[in-house]
């Protein structure tokens, strides 16, 4: 599966101030919280389920590795519905993901 342009854009914008990625083997260099958001983005916007076992940094190291991961996925239309965690998922005041801007 080709890496969707939106995903490439997401990565490039989160890599800032590094230049956009061109080499598929260049390290993506996203921090871990940006990677968590990437997983959330893939799951919510593309219906791609990243399996628990696939949540290792190596799978997100380069565009080539990410492409290989996506390659192994079924097309979005056939994506299975994700198991629902506890209904009270969102806490009021939940700090959530944070990128330190200092």
């Amino acid at each position, binding site marked *: 599966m080709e890496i969707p342009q939106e995903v490439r854009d997401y990565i490039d914008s989160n890599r800032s101030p590094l230049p956009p990625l061109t080499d598929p083997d260049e390290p993506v260099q996203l921090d871990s919280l940006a990677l*968590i958001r990437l997983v959330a983005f893939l799951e919510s916007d593309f219906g791609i389920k990243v399996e*628990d076992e696939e949540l290792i940094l190596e799978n997100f190291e380069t565009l080539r590795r990410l492409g290989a991961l996506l390659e192994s996925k079924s097309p979005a239309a056939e994506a299975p519905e994700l198991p629902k*965690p506890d209904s009270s998922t969102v*806490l009021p005041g939940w700090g*959530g993901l944070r990128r330190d801007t200092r």
Partner: protein
Amino acid sequence: MKTDVLIVGGGPGGAAAAMFLIREGIKPVILEQEEFPRFHIGESMTGEAAQVVRRLCLKDEMIKKRHPIKHGVKVFGANAVNSWYIPVSSRDREWNLSLSTTWQVRRSEFDSMMLREAEARGATVIRGTATKPLLADDSSVRGVTIRWPDGGSEDFEAEIVLDCSGQATFLANQRVTGPKYVGSYDKQVAFFSQVKGAIRDTGTSGENAKDNTLIFYEKKFHWSWFIPLDEEVVSVGLVVPRADFLEKKQTAEEFFRSDLDKINPEIPRRIPEMKLVEKVHVIPNYSYQVRGFCGKGFICVGDAHRFIDPIFSFGLTVTMREAEFAAPRVREYLEGKGRDKANPFAEHQIFCEKGIDNLEDMIDLFWEQPFAFATFVHHRYPAELTDAFAGRIYESEHQPSAAILTFRKLLKRTREYDQDDYSVPIGSRFHPERAALWEPNSPVPTTEEWMGAR
């Protein structure tokens, strides 16, 4: 001398056990060898630890003492690029999740308050050291031999002994329990002290509340804690593999001063000048698990049977919760229940063990797969993991949750329970080859000897 319930150890486990027993109509005797107040580590409470304190009707006392209020835990990732935050939460009777708060406690003060309170409510506190257990012919525990401060000795008989001796693991070292095994985090050493002048956040609630626990993560097995104790003083700890310390050939204080800043760039920002107001304490090899920690005439509580890793501040939680769970079981035993059984407290034992197993799965996954762990905290299972971080780790609290079951899958671990006893395999499950027996007299009997021998 004789009593129904003798509690060995007057720390928060012993004091909480005494207060819950008094509610059951039983007035216990607490044996404590140290003069309180005394220094102790383990200063941060979870949400559920605070609930225990509230159930003991000590909330007003806590507010009066102005213990810092903790709204959550903030974990700074390597290089301080990211941080993530877990709020303290609670559940109501309908299991609705809401935000809550808990306390940070200077243990010398908190532990004294707890012991005083237990005494005021009817417990008898005596000063002395338990030197050996008294055993009946069927090997049930029927009391302990006490050494008094003046050097004399006396047998003190009891229907049941609660071992609340903490990391001294009195009954395990006396081989009354099953074997004591080395745990997963036995190759580490913790250094800790208290500093003045540290820079805190300035908020009044939530993520930036000034008295939250901060955890600074560098890499696997290298981390640091920051726990406010009052308006001025902060408890600061440094945990590293002990090999890192040994090769430097420094004193504990030299090492603490030189290596703390290296953990995370956030630390020198928070502690621009290291003004220590407490000596640098050291605890090496702190991870262990005791099998068979309940039996005829005895129950081990909290650290007296198991300690995994200090990373998520579960010490007070586990010991006070186990004390609360034990109290009604002790009353039933005194009333004659289960006396004919090999282990009258088998159900209590497996209940407690399963709770800490859930906690161990969480800690192990945090260390083994930090990226997956952070994804679960923030994306897949935020509610389940706020529960776990708040200390809701027991079967009666919907555990193991989907999150814990996922951790087990990733750790390639199944939890099987040997009838009413313990989980197998025992000890370090991620590295089963390290599940070695802990020998009471070797290789590291005390911190002082270990420090002297290196």
